[in-house]
């Protein structure tokens, strides 16, 4: 009898694990999900509402893929885990036994105990069911005369963009005094503030939610602002103040949890043969400058790749490389490689070099060590950069001068786009009294191995 691997959660983490286990073995694999039968890309939910895609387009694999690869898909919600008997119980009473269990249940939207947070018309934007709710409560600007979004992060701004695509007035409550400035340097945060307003989003900085009020039918009627007491009438409230691991069903099990499921570097929990990956996993000790819980697409995928090796007998520690991430703020693309901390969180040795286009929404921030000039990280807005090149420079611990000299190698904008390396380097030279000559792009360097 083949070992039975059961994966709870069919997001990017669980599915990546399943795919890589299948590549390396013929173990029996079952993926359980209460959300949808087939894997879809959560990041694309917004595009369905906006009419860029249909749900079927968000599925990275055709439906026959799973049967062909002998991966069993099971729709259902797990109620409890019996670790002693290696048995899972579904909410409908069914059970399934496992030899190895992988918990990859992802996140759920944060709710901070606001009065009215469970009213009709209040929702997060994470699950497919949230999208269905939004379609129900905010199909157009007649049914939804105004929406209030609580929480200024990546999902919040996406939800705002979604609602604006249907001309629904949006009030956007942001706790910080500038959008996402716990992460972004002030220059960039200010640029996004401006861009948000240009999209006719009513951006309220330094505003917190006090309560959500109901009408006589138990539906959202308005929200009250903490600071001013102002009442804003609305039909939909989006709660996008971050996410938290989705692990309530483990409460009564003996699997050790904190905010998430606690795991070691091998993604093992305290119970043998049970692993946790993705958004719901919490590292016992931080890896480098990373957070203990990383609710990011890429890290979920990497944990899946790693765990599959372990499951297939090649015990491998989760060892993520240089940090990278990306996002899109309305029309502005954002990429980051290495670590750039905002002014609020930056350490003493970190210096910025910044450049901003005089008119367009393009800017970069390079973080470097003030003594050694070692390049620490880059944020780019409106300019695409090559992942491989920055990964290489970070691994090689290059100096900022090197990065700027060869910046053209890293540019990834479409052909014929105007390049800004000369302006960027000129600014650095002027500020630092240097004479760096930007080099022309070289294919040889781009493809050279370290």
């Amino acid at each position, binding site marked *: 009898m083949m070992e039975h691997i059961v994966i709870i959660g069919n997001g990017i983490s669980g599915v990546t694990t399943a795919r890589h286990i299948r590549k390396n073995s013929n173990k029996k694999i079952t993926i359980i999900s209460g959300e949808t039968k087939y894997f879809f890309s959560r990041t694309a939910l917004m595009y369905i509402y906006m*009419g860029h895609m249909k749900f079927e387009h968000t599925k990275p694999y055709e439906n026959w893929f799973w049967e062909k690869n002998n991966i069993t898909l099971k729709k259902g919600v797990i109620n409890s885990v019996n670790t002693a008997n290696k048995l899972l119980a579904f909410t409908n009473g069914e059970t399934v036994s496992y030899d190895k269990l992988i918990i990859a249940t992802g996140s759920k939207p944060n709710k901070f105990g606001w009065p009215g947070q469970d009213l009709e018309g209040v929702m997060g934007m994470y699950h497919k069911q949230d999208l269905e709710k939004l379609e129900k409560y905010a199909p157009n600007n007649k049914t939804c005369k105004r929406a209030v979004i609580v929480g200024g992060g990546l999902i919040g701004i996406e939800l705002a963009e979604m609602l604006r695509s249907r001309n629904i007035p949006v009030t956007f409550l942001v706790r910080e005094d500038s959008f996402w400035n716990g992460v972004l340097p002030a220059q960039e945060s200010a640029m996004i503030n401006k861009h948000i307003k240009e999209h006719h989003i009513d951006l309220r900085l330094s505003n917190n939610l006090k309560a959500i009020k109901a009408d006589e039918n138990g539906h959202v009627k308005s929200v009250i602002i903490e600071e001013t007491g102002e009442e804003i009438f609305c039909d939909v409230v989006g709660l996008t103040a971050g996410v938290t691991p989705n692990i309530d069903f483990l409460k009564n099990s003996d699997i050790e949890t904190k905010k998430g499921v606690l795991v070691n570097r091998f993604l093992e929990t305290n119970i043998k043969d049970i692993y946790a990956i993705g958004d719901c996993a919490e590292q016992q000790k931080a890896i480098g400058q990373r957070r203990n819980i990383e609710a990011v697409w890429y890290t979920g995928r990497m944990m899946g*790749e790693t765990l599959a090796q372990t499951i297939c007998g090649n015990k491998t520690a989760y060892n*993520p*490389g240089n940090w990278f991430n990306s*996002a899109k703020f309305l*029309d502005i693309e954002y990429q980051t490689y290495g670590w750039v901390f905002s002014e609020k969180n930056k350490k003493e040795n970190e210096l910025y070099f910044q450049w901003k286009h005089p008119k367009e929404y393009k800017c970069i921030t390079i973080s470097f060590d003030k003594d050694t000039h070692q390049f620490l990280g880059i944020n780019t807005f409106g300019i695409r950069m090559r992942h491989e090149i920055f990964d290489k420079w970070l691994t090689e611990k290059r100096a900022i001068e090197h990065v700027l000299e060869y910046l053209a190698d890293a540019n990834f904008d479409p052909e014929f786009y105007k390049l800004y390396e000369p302006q960027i380097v000129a600014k650095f030279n002027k500020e630092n009294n240097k004479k760096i000559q930007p080099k022309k792009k070289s294919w040889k360097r781009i*493809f050279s191995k370290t």
Partner: protein
Amino acid sequence: MKAIKHTGFVLFLVALTIFTGSLFTGSFQLSKSELDAFLKEKNYKSTVIRGALEDAVITDKKLTIFKFSARVRKAYEKSNSYYDALITKYNAAKNWDKKGEQYQYKIYGKPHTLSYTLAKKAGRGFVKENASLIWFLTFGFGMIGALLFMLPNLILLGKPGIKNNHIYHNSATNRGFVAWLVLIYLVAFYLLLYFKPDYVVNWTYILDPISNFLNGGDASQWFVYGFLYCTIMVTMGVRMYIKYRHNKYQIIRTTSVLFFQIVFAFLIPEIMTSLNMPGYDFKNAFPLDYDFFFEWNLDTLTSSGKIGLFILIWGIVLTLIIVPVMVYFFGKRWYCSWVCGCGGLAETLGDPYRQHSNKSVNAWKLERWLIHSVLVFSLVMTVVTLYCYFSGTTSFIGINSQWIKDTYSFLIGAWFAGVIGTGFYPIFGNRVWCRFGCPLAAYLGLVQRFKSRFRITTNGGQCISCGNCSTYCEQGIDVRAYAQKGENIVRSSCVGCGICSAVCPRGVLKLENGPEEGRINPTEILLGNDVDLMNFVNKK
């Protein structure tokens, strides 16, 4: 702004209605002297055709084009069946000499084409007599209306950026009933153009003044098609300029296809015709230009002096050297989405429908079978044609030269490239012909796949599998399948339109020409994960 848009839409519908309605106008008859002139020019040997045509077209009745066409076709049929009867008769009598004599009296040609030639001379009425006014009411109103409809988007769509909102909420772009209406209109248009040209003779009158100005002769149905093609591409090109105004690659590429369509496909051939040269589209490469090696073309070219010889050599050099060398350096995009007329229409008129291409693995299989079959078909046809041309025979390896040419022209030239290729835009996407049928695309694709510097680079591990790239790939390539694995996209069918790169929200895709080494990069573990693990997997 909305009001301007609506006005434009109404104006466009008015133009379309007048354009379509014009087909049903006018009366068709010939005077005795006009018919005499026609018969003299044609020099038919049949003794029956004169009487038959006199009965058919010299009349006081106000015949519509449809009745006129029926009468003319009947007249030709009458003549031919008269001689067919004689053939049967002499055949029965075993009078071979007499039987053989009859064939010279028969009149060959497609009935609707014969009818078209007469109809062109026979038309009278408002459209013909007021060509400039009708031109303004149809082409003029149509273009102004369309522009009024599209220009407000500069403001209505907001800041520059990807503007795909509501594509799947709109009946016209989500295979709704508007899309089906457009499909029916387009299919009907192509069926008339290819198979019943006499029915659209009224349209040629609208363009007679322009045709006379350009080449000194009246407009044919092909002139109408060419002119319409250019106006549609220009108008829808403006839409591209607005929609992708933030993307320089799209702006330059759109300008390029417009230039090659208007100058190379339309103006130069017209001007050559007016100079008594064979009209030739210098960018139309064999085997897309499938009749380049047909007898009539070879005869025309070899009897046209130096220019004919130049065209002959250019055509061969274009296909054998220029096309593959350019594909090596730039990918097949240099032709398919920068130069080609079919590609030009697909990238302008067809852009709103690009999301309808089928991305399934089955569609990919069908694509490879179909497109390579058409390539083989076109090559076999050409070999047979050339052999017969030089040897003076009528068939080769058991294939009749005329039969295979007719079959190809009908199945591939008319049905596949025209009726299905363009007519089905609104439902099956804008590159049906280019993906499944074009023999030149098949040839370019083979070069692109095996010997080219072109690829779409995937940016390390940045893909989030959202699927915008696959959704908007007009060639039905599942771009995401590669991108989410960190692999570059190297596919024979990619025409390098650049839209996958444009719609990507995370800056993952870039079209580029670079060294062949490392172009195809299979990766099992994506960038961003531990380096040792990558080494482990790569070693395995």
